[in-house]
């Protein structure tokens, strides 16, 4: 290979004037984390609501939950981001559309909301499976005790269901982090975007992508470690995950 390696490139000043190339990548990493957390909050809140809705006895509620999940699962994330970013402002009343277009950091908010909605359908499916995995008797016993439906979910079903789905939720969170990279297409310069920019400015393709790769791997490692700790903390003695 006649590729000219230059690992010192990270400590050379970047053309943006904001420090070295390494600073550039680190700011990208930070934006990836921010976007992923923002998206994850949306995914967790909406996913929980829809996941619960899908397990309710009401036919209409179940149908709404089904339609919601199918809507967000059957379109590529990239297309969804385009819909929110390019199409939505045109379909809204003029004044609202203009406000949306002029919003500062529009690509950040679009990415957060877009990835969040996309992932919420997956979170909903996981939570539904978790609730479905509980023995029927739990709901029946809770109802027999005189708890309202809301109380049954709040005090009996959800505390157990969340514990069951904690491991799959970890992988959904990792997917959220990875999916923020798609937002490069609507102009969000997160970690992958910064690596791409560094490659274009410095022509050191492989150094830039290696650094981004290492950062993603470390981020994954941190998340997995933290989630393992959380799993151990909330584990209930007597269950497989408990002591």
């Amino acid at each position: 290979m006649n590729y000219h390696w230059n690992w010192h490139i990270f400590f050379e000043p970047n053309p943006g004037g904001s420090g070295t190339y390494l600073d550039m990548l680190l700011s990208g990493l930070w934006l990836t984390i921010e976007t992923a957390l923002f998206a994850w909050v949306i995914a967790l809140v909406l996913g929980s609501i829809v996941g619960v809705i899908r397990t309710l006895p009401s036919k209409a509620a179940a149908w709404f939950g089904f339609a919601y999940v199918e809507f967000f699962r059957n379109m590529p994330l990239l297309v969804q981001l385009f819909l929110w970013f390019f199409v939505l402002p045109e379909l809204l009343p003029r004044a609202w559309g203009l406000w949306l277009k002029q919003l500062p950091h529009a690509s950040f908010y679009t990415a957060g909301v877009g990835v969040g909605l996309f992932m919420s359908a997956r979170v909903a499916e996981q939570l539904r499976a978790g609730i479905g995995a509980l023995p029927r008797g739990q709901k029946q016993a809770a109802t027999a005790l005189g708890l309202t439906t809301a109380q049954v979910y709040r005090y009996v079903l959800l505390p157990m269901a969340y514990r069951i789905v904690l491991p799959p939720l970890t992988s959904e969170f990792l997917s959220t982090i990875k999916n923020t990279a798609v937002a490069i297409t609507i102009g969000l310069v997160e970690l992958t975007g910064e690596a791409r920019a560094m490659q274009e400015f410095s022509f050191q393709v492989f150094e830039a992508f290696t650094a981004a790769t290492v950062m993603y791997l470390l981020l994954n490692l941190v998340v997995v470690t933290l989630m393992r700790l959380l799993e151990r903390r909330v584990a209930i003695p007597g269950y497989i995950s408990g002591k």
Partner: protein
Amino acid sequence: MFSNFDFDVIRRSLAYLFYEGMTFTLTLTALSALGGLAFGTLIALMRLSGLRLLGRIAGLYVDFMRSLPLVLVIFWFYFLVPYLGQWLTGSSRPIHVGAFASSLITFIMFEAAYFSEIMRAGIQSISKGQPAAAQALGLTYGQTMRYVVLPQAFRNMLPVLLTQTIVLFQDTSLVYVLSITDFLGAASKVAQRDGRLVEMYLFAALVYFTISCFASFGVRRLQARIAVIR
């Protein structure tokens, strides 16, 4: 809200969208799924081979691929493949690799990690007695896998494999970052040429949605039909 819509732009570009774009998308999906399955099965066999080193290498590969965003992997291979080709062919400069070949290699390598996990689950779902019985009959390792284990593993995992292929179908839209004319790329090119982003992106969304919906409906039907009653 739809008053200043120009639906004609869709009709005018239909041929381009489907002959150029959708053909690329579907060919890439089909070939990546087949390649990913073949390569993924190999990785799964490596992981379950019982040979420490081989298993470790396969495991590392899967974990590595699964912790990276697909967009980054697409960029990696786009720049790496010409150098790999140079190294393999021994030519004096990085070889030229077309858009299709580059994205095909990317998707096969990336999807293999995901398909291998599915195949591993499928192989592990076969009871231990079967390979033991096959060995007792005098079948070699290759024959055991080829005639006893893999056909059943494949059948058990078929719905999951097909669902993963639908995900792959949606993921191929990401070749957009290399300005390749897949279905979304074609829609986007028309959209930007004619200034009709709203119509084109809504239409693209509708097409992806319809195909994925029908496909997942078909998978659900298939799952109900081929389920083995135990």
